[in-house]
């Protein structure tokens, strides 16, 4: 198992390196000089001076090496826009917002999806099953950012129960944090929740057909014990794999939904960077968002081996 985990960690490092390299070369090979965006209307000699100062006159591979060494030290350059704060500082401020949002979205989705999927499987073909299936289908077809808008219209504008936009850190107290995040988290988590509910349902239906569930029933266990003790834990294994894949979707949603709710998280930083042509910020945001993805994928793979002993044989 250690060998497998080490191999997966190595693979994740390679993916991160490949992403960093692609990001570096794509932003430089394509037309549009980062300096041109920076200088607006400076004279050519000043441009040349800056070019030398930033090392842009050197061969690409030398630039790449220097950039990469700095990156490993956590130095991603400074924002070329406004007050020129270091990119790493911008990202460190933004990351907790995105992570809180994704975390809450994950919790809310799971709390809704697992009971929904379970009930749907246990009451197969009944109205409640059709209801869950229909809502899940709807949830998958609804654009996340639109759902965010609908939630604002209903809960912030019409009912006035929750704040429409903004973010409060957890240090400001649980309720301010929660009340600002619950609407974006619902918007970001709905598609994820729909996928998980469907997966729980189909996985439970598979497991309920197995012999060991029949045995558990035959020996007279209560229905609750059969479902929660025997069927559900086994049904969870494929659900966890799908969770790993679908978590990417949830993160992507979080990145998009931040714009609806004006939360200055990683997604908002990335989009603003693109709109302002602030290349160091774009680079940094892409790298950090990608890092979170690769890390979560790795975590799921490792978790999967720990949960399902059958995989360890290989």
């Amino acid at each position, binding site marked *: 198992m250690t060998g497998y985990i080490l191999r997966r960690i190595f693979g994740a490092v390679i*993916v991160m390196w490949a992403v960093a390299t692609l990001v570096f070369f794509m932003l430089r090979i394509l037309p549009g000089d980062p300096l041109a965006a920076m200088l607006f209307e400076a004279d050519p000699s000043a441009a040349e001076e800056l070019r030398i100062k930033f090392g842009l006159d050197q061969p690409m591979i030398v630039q790449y090496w220097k950039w990469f060494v700095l990156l490993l030290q956590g130095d991603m350059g400074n924002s070329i826009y406004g007050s020129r704060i270091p990119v790493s500082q911008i990202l460190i401020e933004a990351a907790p917002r995105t992570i809180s949002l994704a975390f809450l979205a994950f919790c809310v989705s799971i709390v809704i999806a697992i009971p929904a999927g379970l009930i749907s499987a246990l009451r197969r073909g009944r109205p409640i099953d059709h209801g869950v299936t229909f809502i899940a289908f709807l949830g998958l077809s609804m654009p996340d950012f639109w759902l965010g808008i609908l939630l604002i219209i209903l809960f*912030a504008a019409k009912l006035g129960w929750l704040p429409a936009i903004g973010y409060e850190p957890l240090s400001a107290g649980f309720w301010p944090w929660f009340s600002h995040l619950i609407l974006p988290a619902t918007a970001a988590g709905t598609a994820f929740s729909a996928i998980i509910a469907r997966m729980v349902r189909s996985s439970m239906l598979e497991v309920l057909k197995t012999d060991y569930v029949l045995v558990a029933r035959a020996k007279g266990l209560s229905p609750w014990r059969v479902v929660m003790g025997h069927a559900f834990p086994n049904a969870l294994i494929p659900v966890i794999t799908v969770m790993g894949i679908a978590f990417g979707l949830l993160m992507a949603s979080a990145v998009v939904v931040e*714009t609806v709710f004006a939360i200055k998280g990683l997604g908002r930083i990335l989009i603003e960077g693109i709109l302002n042509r602030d290349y160091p910020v774009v680079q940094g945001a892409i790298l950090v968002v990608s890092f979170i*993805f690769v890390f979560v994928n790795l975590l799921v793979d490792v978790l999967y081996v720990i949960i399902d002993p059958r995989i360890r044989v290989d």
Partner: protein
Amino acid sequence: MSVVDPIAGTIADDLPARPPSALRIMMRDRRAFFGLVYLGILLTAAVFAPWIAPYDPNAMDYMMLEAPSWSHPLGVDDLGRDLLSRIIHGARVSIFVGVSTVAIAGVLGVMMGISAAFYRGWIDTVIMRYIDLQWAFPNILIAVYLVATFGTGLLNVIVAISLAYLDDFARVTRGMTLTVKEEQYVAAARAIGCSDWRIMARHILPNITAPVIVLATVSVSNAILAEAVLSFLGLGVSSDTPTWGLILAEARSFITRAWWLGVFPGLAIMLTVLSINFLGDSLRDLLDVRETRDIP
């Protein structure tokens, strides 16, 4: 006229008169029927937008943020523009981007997948390394990354979304080709001296179309969603072309006062995505394709 055979009985009576057409089967499926009808209406509205839309989508008026009424069925936006007309015109961009990106991603992805599986070796390794890398990230994020490098605009958005969905097609095609190429008819084609190209185009491709068609259908809805997201984020086509995502982005500051601006454009997106997904599900049953990829 029936031929009576003492052993087999009436042969002609056992044969169905005519296999029902694909369209007829899909019309019988209630959800696919809904999808086809909605998409038919949408397509007509998109093609004939300038004649169908009651107003010029960019014409401004003094009546701002007016609620839905008989003269403006879906209301008016903050600049006095008719929302219905803007949504009808927005359908053009959505459908065009959705179909063209899937066409590009489909052709390139299928070519990559077939050649990877057919030649194996280093071609397979190179293609699959790239595909695996892209697979690690959700398509919509790849599209945002690509727009970050290429810039915005119709062409760039199309290129970005096409490239973002390439990996799905390459992956499905490669898997199918790996099985199909072991079939005897491929060996037979090779034995009679068919070129590699001919084997791939005439013998393998026709036998892997079913899953590709299903994937392409579902991908159109995902591409439409991706376009809407990009437009909403300000990374879309351009600010003077009305698109569903852009209308929602512009409405963002006014939704607390004018709910119709936030509701109707999204409803158009959702109904379109829903219809295409219904159609995709129906095609999946019809063509008997296993689940390709459930996650957008």
